[in-house]
């Protein structure tokens, strides 16, 4: 077992509890934006992809890394963009009048 496995497991379990607790409380009104937002957050794998690409160890890993960077960065950019667009559409009656 790698030395950090246990601490990673703690992080995973706790983050899972945090996730369940928070997402259960997201208003059904916002379930569609929720999907696109978590998608954008998940695109954080781009940091791992950047490291693989930039370490430049073999042409193969650099290529795989660059594909991963492009794929996840497109998710990040597009995900935040569309989430923000959708969220801005939600207006309360009060806000609409003013």
């Amino acid at each position: 077992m790698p030395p950090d496995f246990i601490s990673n497991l703690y992080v995973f379990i706790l983050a899972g509890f945090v996730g369940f607790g928070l997402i259960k409380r997201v208003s059904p009104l916002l379930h569609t934006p929720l999907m696109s937002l978590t998608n954008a957050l998940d695109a954080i794998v781009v940091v791992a992809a950047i490291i693989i690409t930039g370490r430049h160890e073999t042409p193969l890993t650099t290529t795989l890394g660059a594909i991963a960077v492009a794929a996840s960065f497109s998710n990040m950019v597009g995900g935040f963009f569309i989430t923000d667009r959708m969220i801005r559409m939600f207006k309360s009656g009060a806000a609409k009048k003013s």
Partner: protein
Amino acid sequence: MNAAAIQQYLDFAYIAAVVLFILALKWLSSPVSARRGVLAGEVAAGLAVVATLYNPELVAYKWIVIALIIGAGIGIPLGMVKITAVPQRTALSHAFGALSAAMIGIAEYYVGLSRISRFEMGEIAMEVIIGSLTFTGSLIAAGKLQELLPQRPIVYKGQNIVSLSVLGAAVLLAAALVIHPEQTVLFPIMVIVALLFGVMLVTPIGGADMPTVISLLNSYAGFSAALLGFVLNSKVLIVAGALDGSSGFILSVIMCKAMNRSFTNVLFGAFGTVQVAVGKIEARPVRSASAEEAAEILDAARKVVIIPGYGMAVAQAQHKLRELHDILTKRGIDVSFAIHPVAGRMPGHMNVLLAEADVPYDRLIEMDEINPEFPRTDVVLVVGANDVVNPAARNDKNSPIAGMPILNASEAQTVMVIKRSMSPGFAGIDNELYYLDKTLMLFGDAKNFVTSIIKELNAVAAGT
């Protein structure tokens, strides 16, 4: 600054990102704070990306920059799609996320080849399998939703056995790799088999079942990112993956409950389900009405509830419905929208569409809240909804939707239903509601019919 010191800064940047991620989800819980949530997410992502660019391990930036530019080039248009294209965009983004996770896992295998332990090999294999099948599965889902691929379920005899064998093959290859990580030839075969399994997993499923599948794939994409975090020992990936994974998981569960499918049915069985054959529906008499009559009835009401469904999305009738809402409201009529959790084809589908059309969100009422209101409602206007108002869910124990919670439209004084024909909805079953004495069928396309009603209402106003 030495590498260790930089690493400390990076660690703190990632911790800050994690805190912001959590706050982002927290703030998303209500429309009032949701924009702040998106902002928090953006800051977190920006911080993490910029910090990573300072990582001392990076020696060449060229490909990073090129890939980032390409990524932005793909992402920006994908962020600008029409709201109606959101389901397929979501499926596509799961494909991208899974692709990225799989690529990194594969690269990690080749990089670490000489010093990989069995445990790590197991983690990598699991990660790459889940990432690969999610990639192809999501692509198929996106293709079906975009109608590039046939929407209907593609099935053949013995399908389940073939699919399970393919999955079994992938798992066996993974096991062989755990025992002999140096057998590099097995690795690409495992990836290909997993990709194939993704295709076989989603192809048999009908287009209408895609939302459940998308949520599950969402959860897979998240968990594969978390697994990748274990492989790379990156806690920020673990947290982001766990948040994304639990989100997809909860959305699937919510959908299951609202469709009264069991949870295991979705996790293990939903993929195999084939659309129930449409039972022969006998022609029974219904009362139908014209736009003029509908307008008169609406005009005379004090409390109107509009129930939108998938048909509203198909017809793009949300803007016209907002107009109708405005006109009636101006005449002192209390108008609200009743939103069933699985109305449409995506969780929250009706809400985004109506929000897009500028309906204030406080007029969008959830099922549990609006159900007690129906007995006090004069007119229910059902717009392209079917299963979500089908009383069979309550009355007929043998119905495929028995036990599914529904909107009790039938308790209102008068029910008017806009749809094009007597053909059934997603579940493929007849709807008793249409044959009630209090029900008037308004046959036609949702958008056109609502437009006519609005015209008539304005005529009435002009007439008086």
